[in-house]
């Protein structure tokens, strides 16, 4: 088991190295003069020279790469030109907002896709199944940023039910920070009113993510479930005199868990990519919006840091999923140890 975890961790480190290498070499090799590029437009030759020295761009490439990697190991992502703070500090500040959005959306997604897939798989080809298949097929083509804006149009501009953007109403004071998670902080402050306000802000961005994930996720989970219904052990279970509920819950779902988990992991990676769009649209002050705003003013260290942090998040989730597989499928247990 330890060897297995070690192998997975090594894989994660390799992946991070790949992302770091890709971003490093493309940023240093492709532009004709990285210093001039970093300095931005309309800067004097003196400034460019100063930046070149400051960033060590005058040193040989391997040395630069080593320095860069050394920094990453110490979680030093450089300094943001926009906030004049170390990128790592900024990330720590903005991360809870992203996590809160991700966790809430992901929980809703997992539950919703589960129920939709079960509803569809109960009677393949039935009315519910056909409706779900049709909707998910159409929904796959909807860009997530467009979906977010469409929700804003309906729930803010037309119905006035939900706030347009932000994490907490601007005119109100948010609860004192303990965890950085607004929902948790509101509960700690004992203010149901604050919980309500945060929930209202969370509703649209979370809904956007959930709907987007459901399009692909439900389709794949449904396919996994239906495939499971065709397995011979289902006939055995029927031959034992079990009712449809026992067959579904005790036998089929239990077995479908592994493929569904695979889909879910994939979806998580997908979501890590797209959450930045949702944060931008809903002005959600997480690391995605932070990276985007930096990108807008040609401040690139935060963007590269975001890529590395997202990859690390993905590696972590994969690792957790790998530890869950043996729990739900005894056949994998032998392989993992």
């Amino acid at each position, binding site marked *: 088991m330890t060897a297995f975890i070690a192998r997975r961790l090594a894989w994660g480190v390799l992946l991070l190295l790949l992302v770091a290498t890709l971003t490093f070499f493309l940023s240093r090799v492709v532009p004709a003069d990285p210093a001039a590029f970093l300095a931005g437009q309309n800067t004097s030759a003196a400034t460019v020279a100063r930046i070149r020295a400051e960033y060590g761009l005058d040193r040989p490439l391997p040395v630069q790469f080593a320095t860069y990697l050394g920094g990453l190991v110490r979680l030093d992502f450089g300094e943001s030109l926009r906030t004049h703070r170390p990128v790592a500090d900024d990330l720590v500040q903005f991360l809870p907002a992203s996590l809160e959005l991700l966790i809430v959306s992901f929980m809703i997604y997992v539950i919703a896709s589960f129920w939709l897939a079960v509803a569809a798989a109960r009677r393949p080809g039935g009315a519910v199944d056909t409706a779900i298949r049709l909707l998910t097929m159409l929904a796959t083509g909807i860009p997530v940023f467009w979906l977010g804006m469409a929700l804003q149009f309906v729930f803010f501009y037309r119905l006035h039910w939900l706030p347009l953007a932000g994490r907490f109403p601007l005119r109100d004071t948010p609860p004192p920070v303990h965890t950085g998670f607004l929902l948790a902080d509101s509960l700690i402050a004992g203010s149901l009113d604050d919980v309500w306000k945060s929930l209202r802000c969370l509703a649209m961005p979370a809904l956007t993510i959930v709907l987007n994930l459901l399009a692909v996720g439900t389709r794949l989970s449904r396919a996994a479930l239906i495939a499971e219904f065709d397995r011979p052990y289902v006939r055995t279970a029927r031959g034992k005199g079990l009712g449809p509920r026992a067959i579904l819950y005790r036998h089929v779902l239990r*077995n479908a868990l592994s493929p569904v988990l695979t889909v879910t992991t994939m979806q998580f990676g997908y979501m890590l990519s797209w959450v930045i769009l949702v944060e931008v649209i809903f002005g959600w002050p997480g690391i995605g919006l932070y990276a985007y705003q930096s990108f807008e003013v040609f401040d690139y260290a935060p963007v590269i840091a975001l890529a590395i942090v997202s990859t690390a998040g993905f590696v972590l989730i994969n690792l957790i999923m790998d530890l869950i597989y043996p729990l739900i499928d005894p*056949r994998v247990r032998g392989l993992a140890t």
Partner: protein
Amino acid sequence: MILSVRDLRIRFGHAAAAPFAVDGLDFDVSAGEIFVIIGESGSGKSLTGLSVLGLLPQGAVASGSIRFDGQELLNQPEAVLRPLRGGRIGVVYQDPLSAMNPVWPVGEQIAEVLRAHGLAGRREAARRSVELLERVHIPDAPRIALAYPHEISGGMRQRAMIAMALACGPRMLIADEPTTALDVTIKAQILELLSELRRELALTVVLITHDMGVVAELADRILVMYAGKVAELGPAAQIMNRPSHPYTQALLFSATMSEAPAKADLPAIRGTAPPIEARPAGCRFHPRCPQAAADCREAAPNLRRLGDVLLACHYPLLNGDAARPGCAP
């Protein structure tokens, strides 16, 4: 008669043109006997077995009548069939590795039957599952009860499968190719176990197989199916020793061939069973039959009685032919 099947027809879909995979089957099984249904794949033998408990695959439509202990089973609602499944009729499938649920321990899968039929609580069912494993001669039963299907050998799995089918003390066992996935010595052990259970538990066994070798020592009566119809039905001794239908003879032949080293000039069965949508007119066996004559191509033979045997053939083999099967042209 514990089981009576009358005019059983099974096909896929309701369309009038859809061919019958099982095409008008009649037979009876008496209590306590081992009744073997034999045929190649596509003969409809497995569908016949599955239809008894309403376990047909989706899209299959059955008509006719299947009575068990006088009670009609065909096309009955789930609520009627469910207490019978695993209750008064147990089922054993081929390839126990895929037929068992991979994520539950073996003992749990047996205990589940007892609980589903309300015969035992959780603790009692777990205890009885170990007893059942012992009943089918699994050594170290308490340990095996906690093992997962993939952790035990194929023979063990099939024994556990039988224990599962026996859990509620059924009167009848339907075994669908129970030895196909096993090697020769294990196969013999499983057959021996079935025969012992029949003796000691007064069990009726319906054994479905494609392998004449399986039935030789076990069967009381044999039903030979070809392309959805009865070819020959009668006492095992007679059918094994003096087959009247050329198809039965050919089946017997391939069984002896697969055991003894093959001689090149022995005629095995020519060709393959016709696909369901391309069955020939007349006797369905005629394209492969060594003695087919003109009327075999035109008229399907009716089922008729020949001594103890029911037979569907225009030109049944005389007793002498079976003794030297190699002489058929």
